[in-house]
């Protein structure tokens, strides 16, 4: 197992958002993280990606402790994430965002920005267009400001940003929420392709069960901050407890 999270706990005032959460993912594996609203899925992703600092617990990636590292450090270590809600950033184009994602791959010193002034990035631009934007059907809008795009397209841009970092651990927070089912299936296909190509470990938070069932190798169910079940997609679907808590059956 290359990602091993254990005993992750974080509180906000009186609310225990995540409590003694455990999760493991191997390279090349897509793990679905599902659970009712407010279960703590996003908060858990925030802990692993460095946005929140949990009170207790460990998150080890290939043996290194990730907790306490900043998102920018984590990104350079190959941990990239997407957001449940995407911001509409003024002025920046689709390609700009992809380049920002790719900048995590350049391990540079402060003076590197000065070199950037005199360096052409047309090779990177071509690579991003072919490898990332084309499969996400974003190549034709590459030079458009993202604020002109539909919500679904903006989610794709957010995924493009994360993928441009060539991550080893990819954390996806509801990548297909708000998308049409066609867009959603295309997005899920890209995630599987990327996993095949990069061999990265993927944690995918998602409510849409058809996408989860068809994309994930394994599923972890969260409720009230903790893991309540873990298994293959078929096992999860058959489990009466999961059906009660999550699918709302008596």
């Amino acid at each position, binding site marked *: 197992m290359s990602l091993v999270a254990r005993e992750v706990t974080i509180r906000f005032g009186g609310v225990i958002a995540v409590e003694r959460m455990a999760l493991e993912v191997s390279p090349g594996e897509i793990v679905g993280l599902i659970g009712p609203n407010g279960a703590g899925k996003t908060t858990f992703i925030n802990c692993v*990606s460095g946005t929140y600092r949990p009170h207790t617990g460990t998150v080890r990636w290939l043996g290194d402790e990730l907790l306490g590292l900043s998102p920018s450090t984590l990104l350079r270590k190959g941990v990239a994430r997407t957001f449940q809600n995407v911001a509409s950033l003024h002025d920046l184009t689709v390609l700009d965002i992809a380049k920002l994602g790719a900048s995590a791959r350049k391990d540079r010193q402060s003076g590197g920005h000065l070199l950037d002034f005199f360096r052409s990035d047309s090779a990177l631009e071509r690579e991003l267009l072919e490898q990332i934007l084309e499969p996400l059907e974003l190549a034709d809008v590459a030079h458009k400001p993202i604020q002109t795009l539909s919500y679904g397209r903006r989610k794709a841009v957010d995924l493009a940003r994360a993928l441009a970092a060539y991550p080893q651990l990819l954390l996806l927070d509801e990548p297909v929420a708000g998308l049409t089912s066609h867009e959603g299936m295309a997005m899920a296909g890209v995630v599987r392709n990327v996993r095949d190509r990069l061999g990265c470990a993927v944690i995918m938070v998602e409510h849409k069960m058809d996408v989860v069932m068809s994309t994930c190798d394994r599923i972890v169910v969260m409720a009230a901050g903790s893991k309540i079940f873990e298994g293959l997609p078929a096992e999860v679907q058959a489990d009466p407890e999961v059906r009660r808590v999550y699918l709302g059956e008596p």
Partner: protein
Amino acid sequence: MNTRHLVIAVAVALLMGALSLAFGRFGAYMVNAVAIAGIGALSLNLLIGYGGQISFAQGALLGVGAYTAGNISNAGGDGLLAILGAGVMGAIISALIGIPALRLRGLYFAIATLAAQAILEYLFKILDPITNGVSGLVIRPTTILGIPMTSDRSLVVPSLVILVIVWVAVSRLMRIDLGRSFLVLRESEIVAKGMGIDVAHAKILAFFASGFIAGLAGALAGFANRLASPEAFTLDLSADYIAMIIIGGLGTWTGPLIGAAFVVLLPEAIQRVGEAAGLSDILSPLRELAFGLLIILFLIFEPRGLTALLSRLKPRSLAVPAPGAVPATGESLPP
């Protein structure tokens, strides 16, 4: 390199150079003033318009540039060295001013910059050996690369050259990772952090770059006025620069220069009209009133300033748009 921006910048500088020749000493004085204000406005637009960090200390930063350049030049250093030294000093002081921005945000940070402005003004008054106190530091005419800068006419050349370099450099900056991260920072620090941008690093570099450019503008202002005095670099000057970038268009490439020209030339125009109508006593306080009103109107109706207004006028004035013309969308960052 964005060739379009390079061509525009050179063309504007040549036009300004021609104007300075056409209108004698006064023309040279005004062109120099616009160029210097343009450089200063570019520096503040980089910080506020692109980086989203509101600062009221840019006036004092120009002062830092003027005093630094004055001292280097008076000590016999070449004017170019003095200008670069002013840039470096401006960058360092600006980065120091930016440190509280790592903790404070928005309005709270803006108030911290007010304090920085006040502290710098105070230092200008008391650091006698380098600032010559309240009476100000007299800057003897400098020489740049051996050429004596005896008049506004000779100073116009370095001012316009630096304007072009800074203008094009800002354009380039906004197309590299650092500039792109400024734009994300401006929209939301939380998003920037989540995207893996090193927010503290980016902020300090925004202050550093902005301060460097402000230092250059301050040096040129010092050489033009032959004096660096505390009264020249007060909060009023900071406010003027904020007016320039808002009126010109926050976060646009042409805005700072348009705003600078407007803010420098408007008082002249008001005064001319006043003299002609025999009303100068009544009209001169109008300047402040006009700026205040304009800022409010622009913020409400056209946050992208004169730049956006002008680009909206364009398609209408050209009755038939050129085939394949792209609709004008405000001079922001063209892809």
